[in-house]
Structures are given as structure tokens and as C-alpha cells.
């Protein structure tokens, strides 16, 4: 059962879709309430988000900091451009590695779908090169998890 899709569109977009067995209001809240965000937006096993500051209003800022508890970590900052409870969020974000990456512009939609929600996240990067770098960074995160798994097998 694969509920998520991830695809690349044109030179600068990445589109992610996912279905949830909860109404749009709940999924929207899980994306904007810091206490809820800290429970799931963590990446591979072993990572936590000790800092989650989130001012969910148009023009509001957010800052998420992750750590793997072994000295590894990074953070992102962003601003909300538009918030339409409980249907749509538009924000920009950038990652610090430690230099800031170019802004990733993200529109997230939550649509009622049966008794659940269809979420569609549309990312727009400034150019193809930035998109490739972003994907490579995300991959690095996943890659680390696969190395950890590999270590477990050896």
C-alpha cells in the first residue's frame, strides 16, 4: 500500500501527495501546531526536533531545529505567506547547512476526500540546480538512515 506520491514537474517543481484518514481540520492543525509538529516532522529514526517555533499567521515566522543526539543537526527558518484554515498553507523556507539554501516556496492544500484528506504539497525552487541540490540534501538524510540500517546488519 503506497499512499504517498513524489514527482518532479518541469524544471523547478516537486509535487508530493498523501492521503490521511482524518478530516482536513486535523491534518491542517498537525501542520501548524508546534506541539503536534514535533511529534512527526522528524525524518529518519533517531532524530528529534527540540526547537519548534511556529507563528501560524500570514507574515508569521517559524524555526525548526533538528538533532540526531550525536552532534549532528540542522535547522530551517521560514515565513507564512497565506493561511486559509483548514484548506491551504503557503510558505517559504530555507535550510541552513550552515549557509542558507535558496528559498523553497511551498503551497500545501488539504482537500476533503471521503472521510479523510488528500494533501497536495507543491514545492517551487528558484531553478533546476537548486532543486537538484535540495533533493540531494533530502537524500543525504535518507542515506544516513540507510547507512545506520546497514551498520545494524553488519
Amino acid at each position, binding site marked *: 500500500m503506497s499512499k504517498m506520491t513524489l514527482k518532479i514537474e518541469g524544471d523547478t517543481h516537486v509535487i508530493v501527495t498523501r492521503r490521511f*484518514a482524518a478530516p482536513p481540520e486535523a491534518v491542517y492543525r498537525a501542520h501548524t501546531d508546534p506541539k503536534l509538529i514535533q511529534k512527526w516532522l522528524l525524518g529518519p529514526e533517531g532524530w528529534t526536533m527540540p526547537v519548534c517555533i511556529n507563528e501560524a499567521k500570514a507574515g508569521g515566522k517559524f524555526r525548526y531545529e533538528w538533532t540526531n543526539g550525536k552532534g549532528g543537526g540542522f535547522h530551517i527558518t521560514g515565513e507564512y505567506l497565506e493561511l486559509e484554515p483548514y484548506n491551504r498553507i503557503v510558505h517559504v523556507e530555507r535550510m541552513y547547512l550552515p549557509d542558507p539554501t535558496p528559498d523553497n516556496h511551498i503551497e500545501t492544500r488539504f482537500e476533503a476526500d471521503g472521510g479523510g484528506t488528500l494533501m497536495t504539497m507543491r514545492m517551487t525552487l528558484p531553478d533546476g540546480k537548486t532543486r537538484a541540490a535540495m533533493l540531494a540534501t*533530502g537524500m543525504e538524510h535518507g542515506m544516513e538512515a540507510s547507512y545506520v540500517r546497514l551498520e545494524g546488519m553488519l
Partner: protein
Amino acid sequence: MDNLDGAFSALADPTRRAILARLATGEATVNELTEPFEMTQPAISQHLKVLEDAGLIVRRVEGTKRPRRLAKGGIEAMDQWLAMLRKALETNYDRLDEVLAGMEKHKKGKKR
């Protein structure tokens, strides 16, 4: 990939992964590849040699230039990376499923 060990160790370096990501957007010369990194051209050339030996990139001769592009193995590696990114996102959303189930239970509990 016929040289799996070589490919795996070639990918263990972040600079080499970034070079591969850059080449995923199209062919590039050593100069173009050196530009985004705070490294000398010989250092980048050394990384390119490792990637080439691992069968991840190939070079072409064009006058005095030697533009590099992804080889079949490199394209396969990029596909695998995309699969890993997908996996990291899926892990998040599986966790979100549990959070949502917990919220629903909480709500029902309150109503009672």
C-alpha cells in the same frame, strides 16, 4: 550497476553527491563544477576521477574541454536517492497517521 562497491564508496562523500546532483541537471565542464564549491580545481578533478572510476559519470572530448555527464550507473544512483527521499517522507507521514489517530481519540474522549 556493475561496480556496486565502488559506487557505494564513491557516494559516501557529500561533495561527490553534490557533483552528481549538479550533473543530474545536465552536462558540465570542470570549471562549471568547481564554481559552487569552495575547493580548488585539482580537488574537484580528484572527486571526478573517483566518480568516473565507479562508473557513475563519463567524460566527452570537446576541443580542450572535457565535459562530464551522468553515466547509466549515475542515473540509477539518482533514482535510488529519490527512493530514499521518498522513504524519509513516508516515515514522517506514517508518524503523522499515528498523531492524527491520537487526536481523533482525544476528541472523542472529550465529547463523552
